[in-house]
């Protein structure tokens, strides 16, 4: 059986920064990534990030991915990366089983950081399974990673930051965005993103949602309608829109399946996106030496995932006897950065959610 001090599940922003900080402290780790490259969802973020310089603000996500990967590659002796590898089993005695292509591998470890991220939610409406209906992030992958367009005419459902940003990126790729639908009475994401779209001629229809999709083998039309203040469709407000693609951006939910598998204490917290693990201030779950970082313990921006990764890597290393020479200073800095990222009005629901999972 393979032996390694730390296994990090997920090679996105949280996993990569955790590995970097652990390595800086002297702790060896193995990053397990099911995709064929690391970088997570940063590899499709063509926009400049918010935040402050410490979280690479004003740098485009695609370039942050490169920075984080390069940082990890600076420690070839301490960080091993296995791509195209899925975790298939996770046991309380810290045995992790992996499937790399057709090969089954067992790993014994002392600590695990689960940084699996989140997945896009779906929305219930008639014919929501028609081809041509995608998660907004899926379209981002198709366009910005593979250079393939989803179609010619798109409607976006959801005006959170992802919906607004992906709408803008669709326009940058040459797609006609017909409108953005928002069920709430106000726009969900940052208004700077909304204004950016509006000045390009895209209407954001608040108190509107999709009623049904129409099409035989794939999407041809949608029916939208106006909502009352209880989010019920107002009769007679239906409108048909011809589209070949529809993007759904109604939030993310943590990919917490592995946490359920190993049996840590979990809680459903809607403001964090769904089922999340209970954690202490150092991101340790109810099972000793099982840690979490990033969206899997509450959906936030990638900037927070990066800092959570650093924090968790730092703490885990210390616990296993590899204390970073600047431990105290870094610990306070990471805590301070997270506080700063979350302290505005947009972080309010998140702050309440995070209180609920503190153990």
């Amino acid at each position: 059986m393979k032996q390694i001090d730390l296994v990090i599940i997920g090679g996105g922003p949280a996993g990569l920064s955790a590995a970097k900080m652990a390595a800086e402290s002297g702790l060896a780790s193995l990053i397990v990534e099911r995709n064929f490259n690391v970088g997570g969802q940063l590899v499709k973020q063509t926009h400049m990030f918010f935040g402050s310089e410490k979280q690479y603000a004003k740098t485009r996500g695609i370039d942050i991915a490169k920075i984080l990967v390069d940082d990890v590659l600076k420690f070839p002796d301490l960080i091993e990366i296995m791509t195209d590898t899925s975790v298939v089993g996770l046991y309380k005695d810290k045995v992790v089983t992996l499937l790399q292509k057709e090969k089954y591998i067992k790993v014994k470890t002392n600590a695990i950081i689960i940084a699996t991220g989140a997945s896009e939610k779906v929305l219930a409406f008639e014919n929501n399974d028609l081809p041509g209906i995608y998660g907004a992030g899926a379209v981002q992958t198709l366009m910005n990673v593979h250079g393939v367009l989803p179609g010619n005419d798109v409607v976006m459902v959801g005006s959170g930051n992802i919906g607004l940003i992906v709408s803008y990126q669709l326009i940058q790729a040459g797609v006609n965005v017909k409108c953005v639908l928002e069920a709430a009475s106000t726009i969900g994401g940052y208004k700077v993103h909304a204004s950016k779209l509006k000045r390009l001629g895209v209407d954001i229809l608040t108190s509107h949602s999709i009623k049904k999709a129409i099409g035989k083998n794939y999407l041809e039309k949608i029916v939208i309608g106006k909502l009352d203040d209880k989010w019920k469709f107002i009769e007679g407000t239906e409108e048909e829109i011809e589209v070949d693609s529809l993007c759904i951006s109604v939030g993310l939910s943590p990919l917490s399946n592995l946490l359920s598998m190993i049996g840590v204490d979990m809680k459903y917290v809607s403001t964090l996106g769904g089922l999340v693990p209970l954690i202490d201030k150092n991101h340790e779950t109810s099972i000793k030496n099982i840690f979490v970082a990033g969206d899997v313990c509450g959906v936030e921006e990638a900037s927070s995932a990066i800092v959570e990764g650093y924090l968790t890597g730092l703490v885990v290393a210390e616990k296993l006897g590899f204390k970073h020479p600047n431990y105290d200073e870094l610990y306070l800095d990471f805590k301070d950065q997270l506080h700063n990222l979350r302290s505005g009005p947009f972080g309010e629901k998140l702050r309440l959610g995070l209180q609920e999972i503190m153990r």
Partner: protein
Amino acid sequence: MLNTNGVPDKALIKTKFPDEKYLIKPLAITECYEKIPCNPCSTSCPFDAIYIGEDINTAPIVDFEKCTGCGICVYNCPGLAIFIVQKLNEENARFKIPYELRPLPIKGETWSGVNRAGEIITKVLIEKVSLTNRHDRTALIQVLVPLEYINDFVTIRRQI
């Protein structure tokens, strides 16, 4: 309304503009109305003219005495929410705006001038297109706009 369709109303826009006497020189207008965790405009300013401070959720405040209208903050703003404006004379204003679409305009071309609601309001002259490595793929477009649209103009659109 900004909250319902992304269009700030006139009174709100005016809060970000300086007194007209300052506009004889080019100045940065930060159309950032919310408290969001972000500060590259402040950290990228070589003249220390944009204040945000320790709490990065604070909305930026421009010191119009210090601001030189260089445009560095324009392409460093992740929200593309900053532009430069100057009252040139009684006919025209000069803008520097961020632009991230293709095709790029070419110096000397006439494009449509667009307002915050996405409507074409006037014709504008493209005076300069800057896009070097330091712009990091956000082009800076210098545009000549009829003065009457100084509070309305926000971006350009190719004339079809």
